[in-house]
C-alpha cells in the first residue's frame, strides 16, 4: 500500500535531494495561530510535517518542546483539536504527509480504534509514538498498520545490530534516526558522526532514513541532508514560535514571517546539500 509518505520520498528521489521534515506542536501558541503556521509550512519548504500531540509529561523532550506542549494545553489543545487541524489542512493540501508525534497515553484514553478511525478520516499519514517500543507493538503499531497508517519508529545510537531488526520490523514510511543519546533540542551530531549509523540501518532496510534531534541551523540541516534522506527540525522551529510571543504569551505581528521564513532558510540549506550517498 502506497501512502503520501511513500509518494513524497519517491518524488524526492526523483528530484535527487533530501527532504525537510518540520515539527510543530498542534495548538501552540493557540489553535488558530498554530493552524496558520501548519498551513504555511509546505510553501515554506517543508516536505513532511510532524505534528506534535501535546502531553503534560513529554519524557523524551527538551525544554523547547515541553514548553510548546504546555502552551498548547493551556490554550485548549486536545486530541480532538489536533485532529481537526489536520482535517482543515487537508482541504488545502492533499499531498504533504502529516505524521502525528507524541506519547501513547492521550491516544490510549481517546481509544485506539476510535483514534485510528478519526486520524485516517482527518488525513493523517503516520504516527511516531515515543514511548511505544517494539516490545509493545500489540498496543497501537499493529492496529495502525492494519488500518493503513505508517508507523514510524525511532532508531537510536543505543539500538545495536542485534536489536535493529526488531525495531525495523513493523516500521513503515521511513525510519527516524535519533542522532544523539538525549532529548530533543540537545547538542547536534554532524554528518561524519552519523554516516556509520545510517550505513548500518541501510544494511537492514530499504526504507528512507530521516535524521533528527539537535538540528538547529540551515547549515546543520545541509550537513545532515548530505548523508540522510531527510533532516528533521523541531525545537529550533518551536523556539521561533516562543520568541514571537509577547509577555502574555500572545502571538506578535510577524510571527508567521519569523517562523516560516526560518523554515524557508532550512529548506534552502537542505536543497543545497551535496548528496554523498551512504
Amino acid at each position, binding site marked *: 500500500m502506497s501512502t503520501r509518505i511513500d509518494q513524497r520520498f519517491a518524488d524526492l528521489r526523483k528530484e535527487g535531494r533530501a527532504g525537510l521534515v518540520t515539527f510543530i506542536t498542534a495548538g501552540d501558541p493557540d489553535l488558530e495561530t498554530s493552524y496558520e503556521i501548519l498551513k504555511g509550512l509546505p510553501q515554506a519548504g517543508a516536505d513532511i510535517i510532524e505534528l506534535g500531540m*501535546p*502531553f*503534560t*509529561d*513529554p*519524557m*523524551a523532550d*527538551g*525544554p523547547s518542546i*515541553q514548553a510548546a506542549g*504546555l502552551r498548547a*494545553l493551556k490554550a485548549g489543545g*486536545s*486530541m*480532538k483539536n489536533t485532529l481537526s487541524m489536520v482535517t482543515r489542512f487537508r482541504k488545502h493540501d492533499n499531498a504533504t504527509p502529516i505524521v502525528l508525534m507524541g*506519547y*501513547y*497515553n*492521550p*491516544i*490510549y*484514553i*481517546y481509544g485506539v480504534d476510535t483514534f485510528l478511525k478519526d486520524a485516517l478520516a482527518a488525513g493523517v499519514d503516520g504516527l511516531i509514538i*515515543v*514511548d*511505544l*517500543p517494539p*516490545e*509493545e507493538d500489540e498496543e497501537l503499531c499493529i492496529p495502525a498498520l492494519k488500518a493503513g497508517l505508517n508507523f514510524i*519508529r*525511532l*532508531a*537510536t*545510537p*543505543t*539500538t*545495536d545490530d542485534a*536489536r535493529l531488526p526488531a*525495531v525495523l520490523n513493523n516500521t513503515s514510511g521511513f525510519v527516524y534516526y*535519533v542522532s544523539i*543519546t*538525549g*532529548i530533543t533540542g*540537545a547538542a547536534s551530531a554532524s554528518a561524519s558522526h552519523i554516516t556509520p549509523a545510517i550505513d548500518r540501518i541501510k544494511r537492514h532496510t530499504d526504507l528512507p532514513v530521516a535524521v533528527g534531534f539537535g538540528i538547529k541551523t540551515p547549515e546543520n540541516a545541509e550537513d545532515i541532508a548530505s548523508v540522510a534522506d531527510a533532516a528533521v527540525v523541531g525545537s529550533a522551529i518551536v523556539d521561533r514560535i516562543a520568541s514571537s510571543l509577547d509577555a502574555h504569551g500572545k502571538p506578535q505581528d510577524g510571527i508567521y514571517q519569523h517562523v516560516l521564513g526560518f523554515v524557508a532558510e532550512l529548506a534552502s540549506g537542505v536543497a543545497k546539500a551535496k548528496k554523498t550517498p551512504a
Partner: protein
Amino acid sequence: MTTDQPNAFTQGPNDHGHFGIFGGRYVAETLMPLVLDLEKHYKAARDDQEFQSEFAHYLEHYVGRPSPLYFAERLTEHLGGAKIYFKRDELNHTGAHKINNCIGQILLAKRMGKKRIIAETGAGQHGVATATVAARFGLPCVIYMGAVDIERQKPNIFRMKLLGAEVVPVTSGSRTLKDAMNEALRDWVTNVDDTFYIIGTVAGPHPYPELVRDFQSVIGREAKAQMLDREGRLPDTLVACIGGGSNAMGLFHPFLDDQSVHIVGVEAAGKGVETDQHAASLTGGRPGVLHGNRTYLLQNEDGQIAEAHSISAGLDYPGIGPEHSWLHESGRVEYVSATDTEALEAFQLCCQIEGIIPALEPSHALAEVMKRAPNLPKDHLLVMNMCGRGDKDIFTVADALGVRL
C-alpha cells in the same frame, strides 16, 4: 472475587513485565536496550547467592534489620478491638523503608559497573536514601526534585547536600514528583553509558516494579517469621499506606498467596476523593500509560496527567505501582483511602499514646487501623507497616495545626 484469578499472586510479572494488563515497558527506544540490560543483570543477581548475602549483610549492619514487630499495646487498648502490631521500618537508617531498595539497587549498579547514580524524589526521603548509599559506595549522585517540593522540604535538601549529592531543581511541568521523574528519565536517556537510575518505588518500566518489590519484600518476610514466632500463626489483616506503593508491596507480597490474610492498602484522599485535590489513583483515576508502565493514573478526559495532592509529600503522586493496579482489579487486595484530616488525627494519637512520631505517610495507614480495629475481635492479629518516622514532618504538622515554631 472473580473466578479467573491466577493460582498464585506471587508469580507476576510475566516475561514482558506485565501484571495482567498493567506494567510493561513504555519507554523511548534509547532507553529500551538499557532496560533490557538491567533485567538481564537483575535476574542473574537475584539467583546469585553471593549478591543475596551481600544484600543481607548491608541490611543487617548498615540499615539495622530486622526491624522489630512491635505490639502496640496502648493503641490496642485504646481502640478496644484487634491486636495491633507495628512493623517498625521507621527505625531503619535514614528513617524509612526507602533504604532497603536503595541498598539493593546500588549493589546492582556496582555489579553492572555503573559510575554515576541518579534518582527522583518527592518529599526527599528517597533522595536522602539514595544520597546515603551513593556516599557509602563512593559514587557521584544527582537527585532531581520538583522546585515546588524543594520549597517545602528544605531540611531534606540540606541532608542530601551533606551526603554529597547534587540536587537539581526541576522547573518543568507542575514542578513536583512526576516532573522530577520525567527529568531523571531525560538524564538517563542522555547519559546511557555510565548512569544507573535508582527508582524509588514499585513503578517505572519493567523490571523496576519487580526488583523494587523484591528488595522491599524483606519487610513482609520478616513480619511473617516474627508473627509466627510471637503468635504461632499468620496475621489476619495487613495495612499499609500507598503512594507509588513500595512499602505496601514489600509487606504484602510474601502474604499474597496466604488466602486467610486480609490485605488493605490505603491511598491518600487529600482533601477528599470527591474533590480534585487527592492522590488516590485507584479510587479516583483510571488506567493509562506514564513513566514506562500502564497503571491507574489521575488524569483528565484527554489523557493529560493531573496533579496529585496530599498533606504527605511522599504520597503525592498521580500514579501507583502496576502490581497494585492488578491486585486491585483481581480483588486480592482491598484499597481504601484516608484524608489529610484523618491522617493528622492518627499522627497525633500515635505520638500521644505510643510515644512514636510517625511519618505522615503511615499516618494514613494508621487512620484506617483506627476505623477498622474497634470492629474486630480481640484475637484478630493486625499488622500495620510503620514505614517512616515523622521528624521530617513536624513543620508540616505544626503548620496544619496552626502552631508557630
